[in-house]
Protein backbone atom coordinates (compact mmCIF):
# COMPACT_ATOMS: atom_id res chain seq x y z
CA UNK A 1 0.00 0.00 0.00
CA UNK A 2 2.58 2.53 1.12
CA UNK A 3 5.35 1.21 -1.10
CA UNK A 4 8.14 3.69 -0.61
CA UNK A 5 10.29 4.91 -3.44
CA UNK A 6 13.82 6.19 -3.36
CA UNK A 7 12.59 9.79 -3.04
CA UNK A 8 10.28 9.08 -0.13
CA UNK A 9 12.54 10.47 2.55
CA UNK A 10 13.61 13.64 0.74
CA UNK A 11 12.20 16.74 2.41
CA UNK A 12 9.95 18.86 0.26
CA UNK A 13 9.15 16.11 -2.21
CA UNK A 14 5.55 15.03 -1.62
CA UNK A 15 5.22 11.35 -0.99
CA UNK A 16 3.08 9.68 -3.65
CA UNK A 17 2.04 6.09 -2.97
CA UNK A 18 2.02 3.57 -5.79
CA UNK A 19 -1.27 2.25 -7.05
CA UNK A 20 -1.49 -1.53 -7.20
CA UNK A 21 -2.35 -3.01 -10.60
CA UNK A 22 -5.81 -4.19 -9.59
CA UNK A 23 -7.01 -0.71 -8.59
CA UNK A 24 -8.31 1.80 -11.14
CA UNK A 25 -7.03 4.78 -9.21
CA UNK A 26 -5.45 5.91 -5.99
CA UNK A 27 -8.88 6.91 -4.65
CA UNK A 28 -10.21 3.39 -5.10
CA UNK A 29 -7.11 1.96 -3.44
CA UNK A 30 -7.63 4.29 -0.48
CA UNK A 31 -11.27 3.26 -0.37
CA UNK A 32 -10.26 -0.39 -0.15
CA UNK A 33 -7.87 0.42 2.70
CA UNK A 34 -10.66 2.25 4.51
CA UNK A 35 -13.03 -0.68 4.06
CA UNK A 36 -10.40 -2.99 5.52
CA UNK A 37 -10.12 -0.65 8.51
CA UNK A 38 -13.89 -0.71 8.97
CA UNK A 39 -13.86 -4.51 8.96
CA UNK A 40 -11.20 -4.46 11.66
CA UNK A 41 -13.17 -1.89 13.68
CA UNK A 42 -16.27 -4.11 13.41
CA UNK A 43 -14.34 -6.92 15.12
CA UNK A 44 -13.24 -4.43 17.79
CA UNK A 45 -16.83 -3.33 18.36
CA UNK A 46 -17.89 -6.96 18.80
CA UNK A 47 -14.97 -7.59 21.16
CA UNK A 48 -16.24 -4.84 23.47
CA UNK A 49 -19.84 -5.97 22.90
CA UNK A 50 -19.00 -9.19 24.76
CA UNK A 51 -18.22 -7.11 27.85
CA UNK A 52 -21.39 -5.05 27.36
CA UNK A 53 -23.40 -8.29 27.30
CA UNK A 54 -21.80 -9.49 30.54
CA UNK A 55 -22.54 -6.11 32.07
CA UNK A 56 -26.20 -6.10 30.98
CA UNK A 57 -26.88 -9.57 32.31
CA UNK A 58 -25.18 -9.11 35.68
CA UNK A 59 -26.81 -5.72 36.08
CA UNK A 60 -30.17 -7.40 35.48
CA UNK A 61 -29.36 -9.96 38.17
CA UNK A 62 -27.94 -7.53 40.75
CA UNK A 63 -29.52 -4.10 40.16
CA UNK A 64 -29.05 -2.69 43.69
CA UNK A 65 -25.45 -3.86 44.06
CA UNK A 66 -24.57 -2.34 40.65
CA UNK A 67 -26.23 0.99 41.47
CA UNK A 68 -24.44 1.24 44.84
CA UNK A 69 -21.09 0.05 43.46
CA UNK A 70 -21.19 2.64 40.66
CA UNK A 71 -21.52 5.41 43.28
CA UNK A 72 -18.08 4.29 44.53
CA UNK A 73 -16.54 5.58 41.28
CA UNK A 74 -15.36 9.17 41.06
CA UNK A 75 -17.88 10.84 38.74
CA UNK A 76 -15.84 14.04 38.43
CA UNK A 77 -12.80 12.12 37.20
CA UNK A 78 -14.98 10.11 34.83
CA UNK A 79 -16.62 13.23 33.38
CA UNK A 80 -13.25 14.93 33.00
CA UNK A 81 -11.89 11.90 31.17
CA UNK A 82 -14.92 11.79 28.87
CA UNK A 83 -14.51 15.46 27.92
CA UNK A 84 -10.77 14.89 27.44
CA UNK A 85 -11.30 11.92 25.14
CA UNK A 86 -13.96 13.72 23.07
CA UNK A 87 -11.62 16.69 22.63
CA UNK A 88 -8.77 14.38 21.62
CA UNK A 89 -11.11 12.82 19.05
CA UNK A 90 -11.81 16.29 17.70
CA UNK A 91 -8.09 17.07 17.27
CA UNK A 92 -7.62 13.69 15.53
CA UNK A 93 -10.42 14.62 13.10
CA UNK A 94 -8.74 17.98 12.48
CA UNK A 95 -5.50 16.16 11.68
CA UNK A 96 -7.26 14.39 8.79
CA UNK A 97 -8.52 17.74 7.53
CA UNK A 98 -5.00 19.22 7.60
CA UNK A 99 -3.48 16.12 6.01
CA UNK A 100 -5.81 16.52 3.01
CA UNK A 101 -4.52 20.08 2.63
CA UNK A 102 -0.90 18.93 2.93
CA UNK A 103 -0.37 21.01 6.08
CA UNK A 104 1.95 18.52 7.72
CA UNK A 105 3.00 20.84 10.54
CA UNK A 106 -0.61 21.16 11.69
CA UNK A 107 -1.05 17.39 11.41
CA UNK A 108 1.89 16.97 13.79
CA UNK A 109 0.45 19.58 16.16
CA UNK A 110 -3.01 17.98 16.20
CA UNK A 111 -1.66 14.47 16.79
CA UNK A 112 0.72 15.65 19.51
CA UNK A 113 -2.26 17.28 21.24
CA UNK A 114 -4.25 14.05 20.82
CA UNK A 115 -1.44 11.96 22.31
CA UNK A 116 -1.01 14.38 25.22
CA UNK A 117 -4.74 14.17 26.00
CA UNK A 118 -4.53 10.38 25.78
CA UNK A 119 -1.69 10.53 28.29
CA UNK A 120 -3.84 12.75 30.53
CA UNK A 121 -6.64 10.20 30.27
CA UNK A 122 -4.30 7.43 31.44
CA UNK A 123 -2.96 9.53 34.33
CA UNK A 124 -6.50 10.17 35.60
CA UNK A 125 -7.24 6.46 35.13
CA UNK A 126 -4.14 5.64 37.20
CA UNK A 127 -5.43 7.74 40.10
CA UNK A 128 -8.84 6.08 39.86
CA UNK A 129 -7.30 2.60 39.80
CA UNK A 130 -4.95 3.26 42.70
CA UNK A 131 -7.88 4.49 44.77
CA UNK A 132 -9.79 1.28 43.95
CA UNK A 133 -6.75 -0.80 44.94
CA UNK A 134 -6.45 1.13 48.17
CA UNK A 135 -10.11 0.49 49.04
CA UNK A 136 -9.87 -3.21 48.02
CA UNK A 137 -12.61 -2.66 45.44
CA UNK A 138 -11.06 -5.35 43.29
CA UNK A 139 -12.37 -7.99 40.89
CA UNK A 140 -13.87 -11.30 41.95
CA UNK A 141 -12.30 -13.04 44.96
CA UNK A 142 -9.99 -10.09 45.68
CA UNK A 143 -12.95 -7.85 46.48
CA UNK A 144 -12.73 -6.92 50.17
CA UNK A 145 -14.48 -3.57 50.55
CA UNK A 146 -16.34 -3.51 53.89
CA UNK A 147 -18.56 -0.59 52.84
CA UNK A 148 -20.53 -2.62 50.31
CA UNK A 149 -21.10 -6.31 50.95
CA UNK A 150 -24.14 -6.93 48.72
CA UNK A 151 -23.77 -9.98 46.47
CA UNK A 152 -22.93 -8.83 42.95
CA UNK A 153 -20.72 -5.91 44.04
CA UNK A 154 -17.57 -7.90 43.25
CA UNK A 155 -19.05 -8.76 39.83
CA UNK A 156 -19.46 -5.05 39.17
CA UNK A 157 -15.79 -4.41 39.89
CA UNK A 158 -14.74 -7.41 37.80
CA UNK A 159 -16.60 -5.87 34.85
CA UNK A 160 -15.28 -2.40 35.70
CA UNK A 161 -11.66 -3.53 35.61
CA UNK A 162 -12.10 -5.77 32.55
CA UNK A 163 -13.82 -3.16 30.40
CA UNK A 164 -11.83 -0.09 31.46
CA UNK A 165 -8.62 -2.17 31.36
CA UNK A 166 -9.29 -3.36 27.81
CA UNK A 167 -10.19 0.21 26.88
CA UNK A 168 -7.00 1.60 28.46
CA UNK A 169 -5.04 -1.01 26.49
CA UNK A 170 -6.65 0.35 23.33
CA UNK A 171 -5.69 3.88 24.39
CA UNK A 172 -2.05 2.78 24.62
CA UNK A 173 -2.19 1.09 21.19
CA UNK A 174 -3.85 4.20 19.76
CA UNK A 175 -1.07 6.39 21.16
CA UNK A 176 1.55 4.18 19.49
CA UNK A 177 -0.31 4.23 16.14
CA UNK A 178 -0.80 7.99 16.24
CA UNK A 179 2.83 8.48 17.28
CA UNK A 180 3.95 6.51 14.23
CA UNK A 181 1.71 8.59 11.93
CA UNK A 182 3.07 11.75 13.58
CA UNK A 183 6.59 10.67 12.64
CA UNK A 184 5.44 10.29 9.03
CA UNK A 185 3.87 13.76 9.15
CA UNK A 186 7.17 15.17 10.45
CA UNK A 187 8.73 13.83 7.24
CA UNK A 188 6.14 15.85 5.24
CA UNK A 189 4.62 12.72 3.74
CA UNK A 190 0.97 13.71 3.68
CA UNK A 191 -0.96 15.49 0.98
CA UNK A 192 -4.22 15.22 -0.91
CA UNK A 193 -2.78 12.17 -2.69
CA UNK A 194 -1.62 10.45 0.45
CA UNK A 195 -3.50 10.73 3.72
CA UNK A 196 -4.73 7.16 4.26
CA UNK A 197 -2.43 6.58 7.24
CA UNK A 198 -3.73 9.73 8.95
CA UNK A 199 -7.34 8.83 8.23
CA UNK A 200 -7.11 5.21 9.40
CA UNK A 201 -5.05 6.10 12.47
CA UNK A 202 -7.59 8.67 13.50
CA UNK A 203 -10.46 6.21 12.81
CA UNK A 204 -8.87 3.90 15.36
CA UNK A 205 -8.75 6.77 17.83
CA UNK A 206 -12.41 7.60 17.19
CA UNK A 207 -13.28 3.98 17.97
CA UNK A 208 -11.52 4.30 21.32
CA UNK A 209 -13.66 7.40 21.92
CA UNK A 210 -16.82 5.63 20.71
CA UNK A 211 -16.33 2.76 23.16
CA UNK A 212 -15.75 5.16 26.05
CA UNK A 213 -18.94 7.08 25.17
CA UNK A 214 -20.85 3.89 26.03
CA UNK A 215 -18.64 2.74 28.92
CA UNK A 216 -18.99 6.05 30.75
CA UNK A 217 -22.78 6.07 31.40
CA UNK A 218 -22.73 2.28 31.92
CA UNK A 219 -20.20 2.37 34.72
CA UNK A 220 -20.45 5.84 36.24
CA UNK A 221 -24.09 6.86 35.83
CA UNK A 222 -26.31 4.10 37.21
Amino acid at each position, binding site marked *: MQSSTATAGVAGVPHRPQVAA*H*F*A*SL*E*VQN*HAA*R*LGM*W*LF*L*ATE*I*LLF*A*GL*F*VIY*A*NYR*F*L*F*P*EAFALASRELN*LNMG*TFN*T*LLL*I*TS*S*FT*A*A*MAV*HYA*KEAKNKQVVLMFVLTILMALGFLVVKYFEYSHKFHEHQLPGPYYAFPGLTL*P*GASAYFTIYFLSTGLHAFHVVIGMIVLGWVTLKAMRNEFSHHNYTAV*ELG*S*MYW*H*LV*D*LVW*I*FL*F*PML*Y*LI
Partner: protein
Amino acid sequence: MSAMANESFKEDREMRQEHHSGPGKYIAVWGALMVLTLVTVFTGKMHIETGALALALVIASVKGALVALYFMHLAEHQGASRVVFITSMLFVVLMLLFTLFDIGTRFRPALPNAATPQEWPVETRGQSGRYGGGLKAPGTNPK
Protein backbone atom coordinates in the same frame (compact mmCIF):
# COMPACT_ATOMS: atom_id res chain seq x y z
CA MET B 1 -7.87 -5.50 -17.62
CA SER B 2 -9.50 -8.06 -15.42
CA ALA B 3 -13.10 -8.07 -14.24
CA MET B 4 -11.97 -6.81 -10.87
CA ALA B 5 -10.46 -3.74 -12.45
CA ASN B 6 -13.75 -2.98 -14.25
CA GLU B 7 -15.54 -3.01 -10.92
CA SER B 8 -12.84 -0.74 -9.64
CA PHE B 9 -13.41 1.78 -12.47
CA LYS B 10 -17.12 1.89 -11.68
CA GLU B 11 -16.28 2.67 -8.07
CA ASP B 12 -13.84 5.35 -9.17
CA ARG B 13 -16.61 7.17 -11.09
CA GLU B 14 -18.99 6.95 -8.15
CA MET B 15 -16.46 8.21 -5.65
CA ARG B 16 -15.83 11.42 -7.56
CA GLN B 17 -19.26 12.61 -6.45
CA GLU B 18 -18.44 12.46 -2.74
CA HIS B 19 -17.97 15.60 -0.68
CA HIS B 20 -15.67 16.18 2.25
CA SER B 21 -16.44 17.94 5.48
CA GLY B 22 -14.33 20.79 6.83
CA PRO B 23 -13.29 22.09 10.24
CA GLY B 24 -16.58 23.96 10.75
CA LYS B 25 -18.49 20.70 10.95
CA TYR B 26 -15.90 19.15 13.26
CA ILE B 27 -16.16 22.06 15.69
CA ALA B 28 -19.97 21.83 15.69
CA VAL B 29 -19.85 18.08 16.37
CA TRP B 30 -17.26 18.58 19.14
CA GLY B 31 -19.49 21.21 20.79
CA ALA B 32 -22.53 18.94 20.57
CA LEU B 33 -20.57 16.04 22.11
CA MET B 34 -19.36 18.20 25.01
CA VAL B 35 -22.90 19.49 25.71
CA LEU B 36 -24.42 15.99 25.50
CA THR B 37 -21.80 14.69 27.96
CA LEU B 38 -22.76 17.37 30.49
CA VAL B 39 -26.46 16.62 29.88
CA THR B 40 -26.00 12.90 30.54
CA VAL B 41 -24.00 13.62 33.73
CA PHE B 42 -26.72 16.02 34.89
CA THR B 43 -29.61 13.60 34.22
CA GLY B 44 -27.55 10.73 35.64
CA LYS B 45 -27.04 12.59 38.93
CA MET B 46 -30.82 13.10 39.26
CA HIS B 47 -31.31 9.30 39.61
CA ILE B 48 -34.64 9.29 37.80
CA GLU B 49 -36.92 6.43 38.90
CA THR B 50 -38.01 5.13 35.51
CA GLY B 51 -36.33 5.46 32.15
CA ALA B 52 -32.92 6.59 33.44
CA LEU B 53 -31.18 3.74 31.63
CA ALA B 54 -33.12 4.39 28.42
CA LEU B 55 -32.28 8.11 28.55
CA ALA B 56 -28.57 7.43 29.16
CA LEU B 57 -28.53 4.93 26.28
CA VAL B 58 -30.30 7.32 23.90
CA ILE B 59 -27.82 10.13 24.70
CA ALA B 60 -24.86 7.74 24.31
CA SER B 61 -26.26 6.49 20.99
CA VAL B 62 -26.69 10.03 19.66
CA LYS B 63 -23.09 10.81 20.68
CA GLY B 64 -21.87 7.58 19.10
CA ALA B 65 -23.76 8.35 15.89
CA LEU B 66 -22.19 11.84 15.73
CA VAL B 67 -18.70 10.36 16.12
CA ALA B 68 -19.31 7.65 13.51
CA LEU B 69 -21.03 9.93 10.97
CA TYR B 70 -18.80 13.00 11.10
CA PHE B 71 -15.49 12.16 12.82
CA MET B 72 -15.30 8.77 11.12
CA HIS B 73 -16.79 10.15 7.88
CA LEU B 74 -19.59 7.63 7.47
CA ALA B 75 -21.87 10.51 6.40
CA GLU B 76 -19.79 11.15 3.29
CA HIS B 77 -18.52 7.66 2.49
CA GLN B 78 -21.14 5.55 0.83
CA GLY B 79 -21.48 1.85 0.36
CA ALA B 80 -19.51 -0.93 1.98
CA SER B 81 -18.14 0.97 5.00
CA ARG B 82 -21.67 1.78 6.11
CA VAL B 83 -22.83 -1.78 5.60
CA VAL B 84 -19.96 -3.07 7.75
CA PHE B 85 -20.69 -0.61 10.56
CA ILE B 86 -24.46 -1.15 10.55
CA THR B 87 -24.02 -4.93 10.46
CA SER B 88 -21.69 -4.87 13.45
CA MET B 89 -24.18 -2.70 15.37
CA LEU B 90 -27.01 -5.07 14.44
CA PHE B 91 -25.09 -8.02 15.85
CA VAL B 92 -24.24 -6.14 19.05
CA VAL B 93 -27.96 -5.51 19.59
CA LEU B 94 -28.85 -9.13 18.75
CA MET B 95 -26.24 -10.50 21.14
CA LEU B 96 -27.42 -8.16 23.93
CA LEU B 97 -31.14 -8.76 23.47
CA PHE B 98 -31.06 -12.52 23.10
CA THR B 99 -28.91 -13.13 26.16
CA LEU B 100 -31.19 -10.79 28.13
CA PHE B 101 -34.29 -12.61 26.85
CA ASP B 102 -32.75 -15.83 28.13
CA ILE B 103 -31.76 -14.54 31.58
CA GLY B 104 -34.94 -12.48 31.94
CA THR B 105 -37.41 -15.24 31.18
CA ARG B 106 -35.76 -18.07 33.07
CA PHE B 107 -37.50 -19.90 35.88
CA ARG B 108 -36.37 -17.66 38.75
CA PRO B 109 -34.87 -20.33 41.04
CA ALA B 110 -32.58 -21.25 38.13
CA LEU B 111 -30.82 -17.87 38.50
CA PRO B 112 -27.90 -17.39 40.95
CA ASN B 113 -28.99 -17.72 44.57
CA ALA B 114 -28.40 -14.15 45.68
CA ALA B 115 -29.74 -12.54 42.52
CA THR B 116 -32.45 -9.91 42.95
CA PRO B 117 -33.74 -9.28 39.44
CA GLN B 118 -36.58 -6.85 38.90
CA GLU B 119 -39.98 -8.46 38.85
CA TRP B 120 -42.01 -7.93 35.71
CA PRO B 121 -44.32 -4.95 36.12
CA VAL B 122 -47.31 -7.04 35.04
CA GLU B 123 -48.24 -10.36 36.60
CA THR B 124 -48.39 -12.91 33.82
CA ARG B 125 -50.25 -16.16 34.07
CA GLY B 126 -47.26 -17.90 32.55
CA GLN B 127 -45.21 -17.20 35.69
CA SER B 128 -47.18 -19.69 37.72
CA GLY B 129 -47.09 -22.52 35.27
CA ARG B 130 -48.01 -26.09 35.93
CA TYR B 131 -44.37 -27.19 36.05
CA GLY B 132 -42.91 -23.89 37.23
CA GLY B 133 -42.85 -21.87 40.42
CA GLY B 134 -45.62 -20.17 42.33
CA LEU B 135 -47.66 -23.31 42.88
CA LYS B 136 -50.66 -22.73 45.08
CA ALA B 137 -52.94 -25.21 46.84
CA PRO B 138 -53.80 -28.25 44.71
CA GLY B 139 -56.71 -27.71 42.38
CA THR B 140 -56.37 -23.87 42.24
CA ASN B 141 -53.63 -23.72 39.61
CA PRO B 142 -54.52 -22.41 36.17
CA LYS B 143 -55.20 -25.20 33.75
